[in-house]
């Protein structure tokens, strides 16, 4: 039957097939490498010390930290979030909420809840950002400052916060997220143990949907009841406990999540802060830090540590999730092409080869190759170019490999964090690790290809990300 087709079509089909297979194999190799390195990294990490011991051990030498909380239309969550941040267990910190020109009553709610008054605080406009309309302090606590500024986006708000803060370290956190009480102390640990080299630390982001939340604290951890957030739980486990732990071990961590990351202020100011208008401002900043430190020939560490946990609300509807994933994809592409000179550039060492290579294979080529595969492989089978036996065998291998990777990330979770309190939760997550391969994974890749398309068309919007509020998270 193949002989019936013209030589060119077969050649094109062969090239495409090899592209898809090569991209798939490269991704497989990366995941395998990440699993091995993450497992090794965890085996070297001592089990987690109790919070009380950390305080006793590090309390006196813990450096001051400014917690920067950009808030845009966060009226629903912001007061609870700020209460929980003010109650964090850390000896020396301030909370700076940056109201980024919210259209709702975010600022008003803060003013009422904390009896805010206008305040003058000298600061230097080292980083550019939209004008600040006013600074507020609270007579209820010396730790809280609110910056009210004109809307300029998340990166712009974070830059304003960096300008206003005085601490040598700052921690960025989303306004709708909840930090565990000891998260700052745990995240600060690398800055205490190795203060000269550590310039950024990322912690774990977990999904709070379904958990019982009271007064800005996660009181009882439960798995989400809805399918979409449940699927994202397994995804987050893979992303944080496998990928970031592995890359952190070899100092090629390319992403410290904007939802929870701690940075040394001096280096961030030196690279010009967060890039305004970037879709992936967190990825962009970390790449800039790598580039700057390598250009300056300074030794440095950008670390991920699993123990500090930040809880966040995951999208519960397909439309919101689709927007989020397309935006993440655009962010990755934007950073990749902005800093493309670093790709496989010996000057940037393993960051150029492994870190950027990972972005290239997983984020740039990955979704395109996989979606092409969804269409072309069955088409080749229908056209008789591919045998049915091979189609089934390869499909089965792809799915079982995907399940195995997810299961191994659950092993990492069990070995390190054990945040899911019941054995039953593990059984549920195992089932989810299987189910996600049938539909969710494909959907995700379509959203990412959509992100590619939007990137090519120069689409810049963030899209609405409606929140139900973590305090009202579904049980």
């Amino acid at each position, binding site marked *: 039957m193949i002989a019936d087709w013209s030589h060119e079509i077969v050649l094109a089909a062969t090239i495409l097939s090899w592209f898809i297979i090569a991209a798939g194999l490269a991704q497989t190799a990366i995941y395998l490498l990440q699993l091995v390195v993450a497992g090794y990294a965890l085996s070297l*990490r*001592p*089990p*987690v*010390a109790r919070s*009380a*011991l950390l305080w*006793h*051990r*590090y309390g*006196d*030498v813990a*450096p001051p930290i400014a917690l920067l909380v950009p808030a845009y239309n966060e009226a629903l969550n912001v007061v609870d979030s700020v209460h929980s941040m003010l109650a964090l267990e850390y000896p020396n910190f301030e909370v700076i909420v940056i109201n980024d020109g919210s259209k709702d009553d975010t600022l008003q709610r803060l003013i009422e809840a904390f009896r805010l*008054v*206008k*305040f*003058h*605080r*000298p*600061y*230097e406009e*080292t980083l550019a950002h939209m004008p600040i309309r*006013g600074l507020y*302090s609270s007579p209820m606590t010396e730790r809280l400052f609110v910056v009210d500024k004109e809307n300029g986006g998340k990166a712009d708000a974070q830059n304003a916060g960096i300008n206003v803060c005085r601490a040598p370290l700052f921690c960025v956190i989303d306004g709708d997220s909840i930090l565990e009480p000891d998260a700052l102390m745990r995240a600060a640990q690398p*800055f*205490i*143990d*190795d*203060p*000269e*080299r550590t310039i950024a630390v990322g912690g774990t982001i977990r999904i709070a949907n379904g958990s019982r939340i009271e007064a800005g604290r996660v009181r009882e951890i439960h798995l989400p009841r809805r399918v979409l957030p449940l699927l994202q739980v397994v995804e987050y486990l893979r992303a944080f406990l496998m990928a970031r732990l592995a890359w952190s071990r070899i100092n090629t961590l390319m992403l410290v999540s904007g939802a929870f990351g701690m940075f040394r202020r001096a280096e961030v100011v030196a690279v010009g802060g967060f890039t305004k208008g970037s879709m992936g401002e967190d990825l962009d900043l970390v790449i800039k830090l790598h580039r700057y430190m390598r250009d300056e020939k300074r030794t440095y560490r950008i670390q991920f540590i699993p123990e500090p946990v930040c809880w966040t609300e995951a999208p519960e509807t397909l439309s919101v999730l689709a927007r989020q994933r397309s935006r993440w994809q655009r962010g990755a592409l934007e950073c990749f092409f902005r800093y493309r000179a670093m790709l496989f550039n010996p000057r940037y060492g393993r960051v150029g080869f492994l870190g950027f290579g990972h972005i290239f294979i997983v984020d740039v080529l990955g979704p395109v190759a996989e979606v092409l595969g969804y269409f072309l492989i069955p088409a080749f089978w229908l056209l008789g170019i591919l045998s049915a*036996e*091979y189609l089934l*065998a*390869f499909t*089965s*291998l792809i*799915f*079982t*490999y995907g*399940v*195995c990777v997810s*299961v*191994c990330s*659950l*092993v990492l979770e*069990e070995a390190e964090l054990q945040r899911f309190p*019941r*054995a039953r939760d*593990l*059984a549920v997550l*195992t089932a989810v*690790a299987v189910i996600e391969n049938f539909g969710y994974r494909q959907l995700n890749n379509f959203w990412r290809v959509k992100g590619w398309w939007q990137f090519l068309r120069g689409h810049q919007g963030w899209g609405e990300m409606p929140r139900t509020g973590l305090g009202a998270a579904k049980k």
Partner: protein
Amino acid sequence: MWLIWDLSILLSAISLVIMLFLIARRVLQERRARVAADQRRRLLTALIAFTESRDREALKAAVLSVPAGVAINAGFEFISLLRGEEYDDVLAAFNECGLPALIGRQLEKGNGAERIHAAEMLSALRSENAVASLLSALDRDRSREVRIAAAIALCDLGSLPPLGIALRKVGVAGQRSRRLIELFRRFPPARFEELRDHAARTDVVPFIRAAAIDALARVAGFHFADFFASAADDQSPEVAAAALRALGLTGHAEAPAILAGAMKNDDWDVRAAAADSAGRLGLPELAAPLSRLMDDEVWTVRYAAANALRSFGQPGERLLRDIAASEVSRSQRTASLILAEGPAA
């Protein structure tokens, strides 16, 4: 072809076995945790009862009735809440039950977190063999965090080896840790001179020297003011800045001249430390160099200089107002900002 199918089946089997193992392990852990929580509750109840009855035999029976790990953790948490005679009594009971020996074993054979915790517990329990166990950990442990914890514990027990040796055992990588600041702050007064000598050595890591100077300034005060004055022009900006901060705490007859000189240093950290110390010591004779620093290219230095002027009281405020009313410049802007700091009118 069959290889691909075999590989798929193998991956599925591995996944299934792993998950079954994890679930079974978790069920067992849950059971064990429930039992341990119950044992811990019983031991804490016995400890509370002991503080009233002082019945040492009953306490020993309670301690020996629970696994060593539970006794060690609950016991250490409890004694950290006690003081004076009660503390000594509970400590004696723990020693009679052999807890320090168990902790010593934990210091040798536990995981990293347990070994650090064991070092801390040994210093709190002050048993006979604690020093030997801690010295062994300082000497041989493969983790620098454990070695630092052992050094701190030894310092608390008054048995830290000479500082040079202790730091060498901590290792080069460990000599960047802020935990060493904690170690230096715990130094006994009898060994301050040793700390001073170490801070004076130019072959030592600047971070260590600066940490030693900071600790001396906090705990030893004016006694080392001459040393701080001499270290203020050290080649290392980190050390010089620490010495200037120390002078700001202790004061010195030559402080005005030293601080004025440091305000011209090439390193902004040194200039900022000098400005800060001038404000802390209240030296109005430095108003002129501080006014010049308000035009510094680094905001931190300008802010420190302006704050120092403000701390001089009315004369400083007057000077700041004059600068704020002058032509637009960096100094003028800094002065305006500093004068405006505080609740809005």
